[in-house]
């Protein structure tokens, strides 16, 4: 039976820059998927694009292409990614520019667009689409002026179209992570887009590998069992036309692929396991059968699913004030009490200066005592040192700048043993908040465009 090898070399924007190169060079793969977009990444790209219309895509991807383009063309390894961000055409121009510099030609690059609905928000809301926040139920209209990006999660169809047209590289904006694996399967095996079990199999394959090393030993509970984590192999799915697949990694790499490492990733960011809703189908995670077929080989079978919903998920971002965080290290006897006194001192001096923050908009953490798991992990009674971390959130930027000025003085005018103030005064940062919503599928899909051009 024909199998197709699909790797994932990038779990998020900021993941290892060497991982996709190692994955490409470490053995045979047919496709390389790369995820560059987190929930608010598109908002950051919007800022960049406003300053310079030629930007707005993931520049890490261009650096990757510069390193490997001749090999991709020679071996015909096809790359699917969402690095196009808000400007996939700009990203394609840059890829062509790099190809020209390297003297590489005779390959095609596809662009899938139509995910960016920000320019249409006014029209959509006027047309009766509330775009209500999925977490709070509030309609978008009152905050629409503060929206900095709004993109639909596209499914696999546009990518499959680009692959059908011969694209070696497919640049998308907000295509869903799982489509990076489903699309090459649907393309290679000619799957029907209404074969819900196959769509679900491809979606689950995508879910397993979308976070890179998280299914090959990264972030694994029994970390002490994982060999050579420093050289962890990024995942590969060996897919078959019947919808079964094997999760594996290149020989000679570190990490491990076991039923346990794959199970942990299957449950990552999971809601209701009976209904994993994506743009292409509704997958049933309770149908999945896992078997250890050999060392670093887990067979996945039995997957079933249901028809896609009439909606696509929208990921929007909007400005929600400012935040600032600062920290000090407090060392020596009675470190916890000294850190508490330091925090109290900062709030009182701010108050004396007329700067008061709402209680719910302030945070004080004692890292090393109980910052992450208060009430759960047993806190030490008298640790030798504590990292005091303070944070504030407010609509008024000036108040946050004032907060930033009250941290350093503690070194000389606070309790003894206070150090670790480095990197200057904490600066106010804009808070870009996340707004998840649903939109009728046809409002987006009618606008999806695919174009394939040759270098």
């Amino acid at each position, binding site marked *: 039976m024909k199998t197709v090898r699909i790797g994932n070399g990038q779990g998020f924007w900021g993941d290892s820059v060497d991982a996709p190169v190692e994955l490409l060079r470490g053995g045979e793969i047919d496709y390389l998927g790369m995820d560059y977009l987190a*929930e*608010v990444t598109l908002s950051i790209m919007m800022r960049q694009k406003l300053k310079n219309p030629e930007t707005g895509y993931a520049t890490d991807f261009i650096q990757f292409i510069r390193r490997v383009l001749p090999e991709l063309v020679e071996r015909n390894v096809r790359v699917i990614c969402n690095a196009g961000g808000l400007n996939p055409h700009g990203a394609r121009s840059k890829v062509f520019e790099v190809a020209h510099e390297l003297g590489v030609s005779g390959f095609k690059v596809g662009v899938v667009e139509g995910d960016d609905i920000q320019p249409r928000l006014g029209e959509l809301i006027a047309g009766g689409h509330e775009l209500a926040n*999925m*977490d709070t139920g509030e309609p978008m209209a009152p905050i629409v002026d503060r929206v900095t990006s709004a993109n639909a999660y596209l499914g696999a169809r546009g990518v499959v179209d680009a692959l059908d047209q011969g694209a070696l590289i497919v640049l998308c904006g907000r295509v869903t992570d799982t489509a990076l694996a489903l699309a090459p399967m649907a393309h290679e095996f000619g799957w029907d887009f209404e074969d819900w079990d196959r769509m679900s199999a491809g979606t689950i394959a995508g879910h397993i590998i979308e976070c890179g090393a*998280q299914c090959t030993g990264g*972030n*694994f*509970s*029994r970390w002490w069992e994982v060999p050579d984590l420093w050289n962890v192999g990024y995942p590969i799915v060996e897919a078959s036309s019947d919808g079964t697949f094997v999760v594996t990694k290149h020989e000679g790499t570190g990490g491990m692929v076991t039923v*346990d490492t794959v*199970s*942990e*990733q*299957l*449950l*990552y*960011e*999971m*809601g*209701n*396991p*009976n209904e994993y809703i994506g743009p292409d189908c509704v997958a049933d*995670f*309770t*149908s*999945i*059968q*896992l078997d250890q077929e050999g060392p670093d080989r887990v067979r996945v079978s039995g997957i079933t699913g249901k028809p896609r919903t009439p909606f696509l998920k929208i990921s929007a971002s909007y400005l*929600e004030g400012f*935040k600032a*965080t600062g920290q000090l290290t407090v060392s020596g006897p009675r470190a916890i009490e000294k850190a508490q006194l330091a925090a109290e001192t900062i709030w009182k001096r701010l108050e004396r200066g007329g700067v008061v923050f709402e209680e719910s908009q*302030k*945070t004080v*953490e004692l*890292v090393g005592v109980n*910052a*992450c*798991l*208060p*009430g*759960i*992990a047993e806190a030490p009674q008298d640790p030798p040192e504590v990292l005091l*971390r303070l*944070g*504030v*959130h407010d609509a008024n930027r000036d108040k946050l700048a004032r907060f930033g000025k009250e941290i350093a003085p503690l070194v000389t005018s606070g309790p003894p043993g206070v150090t670790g103030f480095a990197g200057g005064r904490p600066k106010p940062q804009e*808070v*870009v*908040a*996340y707004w*998840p919503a649903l939109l009728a599928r046809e409002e987006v899909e009618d606008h999806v465009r695919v174009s394939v051009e040759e270098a």
Partner: protein
Amino acid sequence: MRVRLYQIAHARSGDKGDGSNVGLIANTPELYELIRDQVTAARVKEHFREVCMGEVERFEVPNLNALNFILHDSLGGGGTESLKTDAQGKTHGQGLLSLEIEIPDEGEA
């Protein structure tokens, strides 16, 4: 005898809106039954009482010997709004593994 979950199970967590999810996977099908009977949504809520300000929902995933918990309102606002060090609930899986349950003395531990 009483054991901590990390002796008989493993877990992973991440963010889910303004809450987190924790997937808890038993090491064997027999242990899954013990965990399913004892690690209720109410017990997890009590365990995370200083972290999770909302409800705890529980789903069963028997084919993976697993339970999935949603800890609503547990990230101090979630995502980029949160001021917490662990704004994405990445540590909640490790936190759940410190919960104690009762297993039979002849049981695997």
